[in-house]
């Protein structure tokens, strides 16, 4: 079968990238792009409905024989990986080139190939041991990519936090796969229907994969890692790596039986992630940190869909469960595409100005019209507005939830608040992206950082255009992608045939292009009319204020202040302010910062307690031999006492 050959070619290409990438940048570019195309070619038949590809080899790796499987679920995530990896590869050719980063670029190429290769292996592995190995290698590759720029202490800190958090998650996965192996007697993975005693394992998977997916409150590593990584790395981490956590949850909630409460918990966590992710995003002043928190929100939306599907499956197969799951799976694609686009756009801004601080930017549309337009498109898409793709997937999730509410069952008690929270999160996301677009691209330049800005070159521009085109296409042709997600939703838990394209989605497929056309016509008409009546340029009127300066513009911080106040109980912003005093004030100062609540207010104090206890225990270790001998004697005495008391009983 061709699938195997294509996958083999992709793996070979990526492997060659790992080996030769550091020395030959052009060859690496070609080979990696070729691998991405080959991956895509391998998954397209499966997405189009071909039977799953299953491959076993007698070759033993760590004592277990190789077993790869490419079914619709894997294919959906692999397709996203191929697209985002392709875009990121081309982007990095200019963004992180040898000329600008001679020290780190070669290593960056190696680890990039390794990251893509390991993620593909995770998605293909059908053997618990190999899954774990690939998972660990993928985590480590991502660590080296995040810390490419490791001269900066904050990057090192972010990488360290990522590594620690990831390994906490991997620990859960170790436990999960080992217990699974003990229960089933082998590392081989596959559907295990009816083994209800395995259901509690789901909680381990939820912790392990949840940490990777960045759900609230396990997202602690995510904002700093995504903000500090080079932007093409942020794009693939946010667009695809988080989705591997989702993949794990989808995969093992489909293959293994799940506990009764699983749907409730996942839906609840999803709703909380959506709301708080969006709220935290609004409060950020760092361009990439805002995008990172927005990932938490979108992962929340995906989890809401998955939770609804689990609820639906638990209460007898109902249509709304699969509908919500289809929405969630489509959102996996959508979020990967528009978040990839936005992170690449943020990278272009960073590349051009050297700062991620939004309050230092402004007015960039004039020098970077392409980036500004593409980011604006991404902002509309990620806010879930019609006629783009974000709306389609959120709409499907909404429909699933509301159908659950209408069903009047017990599950309505969680579907109802989740619907309302989803709407609130949507409005908050809209506010965040108005803030992002407006403070970075509109108005007047706030600092000198903007003056030497330049539009990004073709290697950085066209990957963004490609992602934007995909966003538009999914938005305009939702009925065309439905069979893919419906098939995947059917493969999720076996025994269900895929739903044909529902009538309402077909109607939306007509409404969205019509809307796009009308929007275009409306803009054209108004533009033509304004030009015919005469366009005159003048300074901003601002109610007749004579000398407005760039510093007087509304900043992102002030834009978010009003809504941010409502979440003050959670944010606990730190404010440092020195007011100007006297008749001729010298200087004033106001610094506001929203701390990482979970990390800084909960985990760090808890970690402090652990550290104090350890310090206290360390006093026992002081290098005096006589005390050590005393410890040994005491230890022996204690052992002896235990042995004697055990012997008596």
């Amino acid at each position, binding site marked *: 079968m061709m699938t195997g050959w294509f996958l083999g070619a992709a793996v070979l290409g990526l492997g060659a990238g790992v080996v030769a990438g550091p020395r030959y940048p052009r060859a690496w570019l070609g080979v990696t792009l070729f691998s991405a195309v080959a991956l895509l070619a391998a998954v397209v038949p499966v997405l189009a409905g071909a039977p799953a590809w299953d491959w076993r080899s007698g070759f033993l790796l760590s004592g277990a024989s190789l077993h790869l499987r490419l079914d619709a679920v894997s294919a959906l995530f692999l397709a996203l990986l191929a697209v985002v990896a392709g875009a990121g590869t081309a982007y990095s050719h200019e963004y992180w080139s040898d000329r600008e980063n001679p020290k780190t670029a070669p290593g960056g190429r190696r680890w990039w190939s390794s990251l893509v290769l390991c993620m593909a292996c995770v998605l293909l592995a059908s053997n618990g041991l190999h899954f774990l190995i690939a998972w660990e290698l993928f985590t480590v590759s991502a660590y080296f990519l995040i810390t490419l720029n490791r001269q900066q202490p904050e990057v090192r800190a972010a990488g360290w936090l990522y590594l620690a958090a990831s390994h906490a998650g991997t620990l859960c996965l170790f436990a999960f796969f080992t217990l699974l192996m003990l229960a089933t007697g082998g590392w081989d993975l596959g559907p295990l229907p009816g083994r209800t005693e395995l259901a509690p394992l789901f909680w381990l998977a939820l912790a392990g994969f949840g940490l990777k997916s960045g759900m609230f409150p396990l997202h602690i590593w995510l904002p700093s890692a995504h903000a500090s990584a080079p932007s093409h790395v942020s794009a693939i981490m946010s667009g695809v790596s988080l989705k591997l956590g989702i993949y794990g949850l989808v995969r093992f909630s489909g293959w293994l039986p799940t506990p009764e409460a699983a749907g409730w918990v996942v839906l609840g966590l999803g709703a909380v992630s959506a709301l708080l992710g969006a709220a935290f995003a609004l409060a950020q002043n760092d361009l990439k940190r805002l995008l990172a928190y927005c990932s938490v929100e979108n992962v929340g939306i995906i989890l809401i869909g998955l939770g609804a599907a689990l609820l639906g499956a638990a209460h007898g197969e109902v249509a709304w469960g699969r509908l919500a799951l289809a929405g969630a799976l489509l959102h996996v694609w959508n979020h990967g595409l528009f978040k990839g686009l936005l992170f690449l756009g943020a990278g272009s801004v960073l590349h051009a100005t050297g700062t991620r601080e939004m309050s230092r930017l402004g007015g960039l549309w004039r020098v970077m019209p392409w980036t500004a337009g593409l980011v604006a498109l991404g902002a509309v898409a990620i806010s879930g507005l019609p006629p783009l793709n974000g709306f389609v997937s959120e709409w499907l999730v909404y429909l699933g939830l509301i159908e659950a509410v209408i069903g009047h069952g017990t599950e309505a008690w969680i579907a109802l608040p989740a619907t309302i929270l989803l709407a609130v999160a949507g409005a908050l996301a809209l506010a965040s992206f108005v803030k992002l677009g407006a403070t970075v691209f509109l108005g*007047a330049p706030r600092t000198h950082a903007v003056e030497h800005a330049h539009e990004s070159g073709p290697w950085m521009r066209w990957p963004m255009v490609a992602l934007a085109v995909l966003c538009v296409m999914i938005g305009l042709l939702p009925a065309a992608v439905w069979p893919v997600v419906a098939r995947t939703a059917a493969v999720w838990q076996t025994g269900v045939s895929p739903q044909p394209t529902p009538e309402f989605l077909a109607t939306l497929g007509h409404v969205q292009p019509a809307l796009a056309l009308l929007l275009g016509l409306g803009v054209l008409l108004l533009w033509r009319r304004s030009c015919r009546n005469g366009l005159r340029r003048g300074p901003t009127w601002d109610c007749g204020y004579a000398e407005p300066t760039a510093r007087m513009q509304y900043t992102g911080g002030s834009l978010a202040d009003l809504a941010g106040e409502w979440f003050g109980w959670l944010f606990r912003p730190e404010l440092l302010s020195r007011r100007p005093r006297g008749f001729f004030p010298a200087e004033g100062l106001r610094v506001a910062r929203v701390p990482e609540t979970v990390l800084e207010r909960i985990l760090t104090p808890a970690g402090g307690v652990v550290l104090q206890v350890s310090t206290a225990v360390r006093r026992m270790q002081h290098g005096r031999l006589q005390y050590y001998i005393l410890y040994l004697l005491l230890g022996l005495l204690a052992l002896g006492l235990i042995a004697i008391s055990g012997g008596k009983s």
Partner: protein
Amino acid sequence: MIVIVETIARLAGWLLLAPLLPGIINKVKAWVAGRRGPPVLQLYYDLGRLWQRGVVLSSLASPGFIAGPAVAWVAIVGAALLLPLGPAGALLSFRGDALLVIYLLALARFGTAWAAMETGSAFEGMGTAREVSYAVLAEAAIITAMLTLSVHAQSITLVEMLTPASGVGAVLLGAGLFTVLLVENCRVPFDDPNTHLELTMIHEAMILDHSGPPLAAILHGASVKLLLFAVLLTESVVPLGHFSGPVACAVLALGVLTVTVGVGLVESLLARLAFRRVPLLLTTAILLCLFALLVAWKGGAA
């Protein structure tokens, strides 16, 4: 063919009738205050004049400054066309169209907010901040109202949701939706469309720098939005499905008129709220819609 004629008729109805509402509101306000007030058709004259005028663009503004109002206008008119009109039904009806209406209004908000930020003016930034922040609470209220109708009618299609209206909880839902109408259309007590103190404005502050045809599009879009909310409010409170065709039309028109006069009276009798109080009132609206939802829930179970 019939579809095309119907579309044009509906479009014409929405576009031509909408600017009447602000005129009526102003008349009511003038009448309460004992003034003669501007003519009812004042907005039509204004729109006609603005459409002929040239545009002064801020030197900072990008093409988005003109695209924003156009996007907002198309989105609002599109949302209006999706709304069923009593016995005439909807032009296009499918499951989940209620959500599309809500999200089209959000798209309109995105367009106006984006255009407002173009000029780099602090006033417009202030207006945008208020608009997008209060929308968070308004969105919660409106989705709750929609859930109420869905639960009562056991459907997510606007036509089926609005035919039986909201049943027993109608009073609660009506009060909640009326509050949402006031905030979404920037009326007193949330915003004062007549004020000249920019520091206290929301919507008016966002459009300070707009002129000519884009301003006309914004003003006309705002009036269509007002009509849209008035129709939605009437239809979700009054069970139009129980009346025969002509009567239902008359009731709908009467309902819209009542809402409009109600807005005028509120505006005459109430002062604008202090900004700190606005979230409180919006939370009240959410609670009203939530209680309506509970009533609908219980009603459905019985």
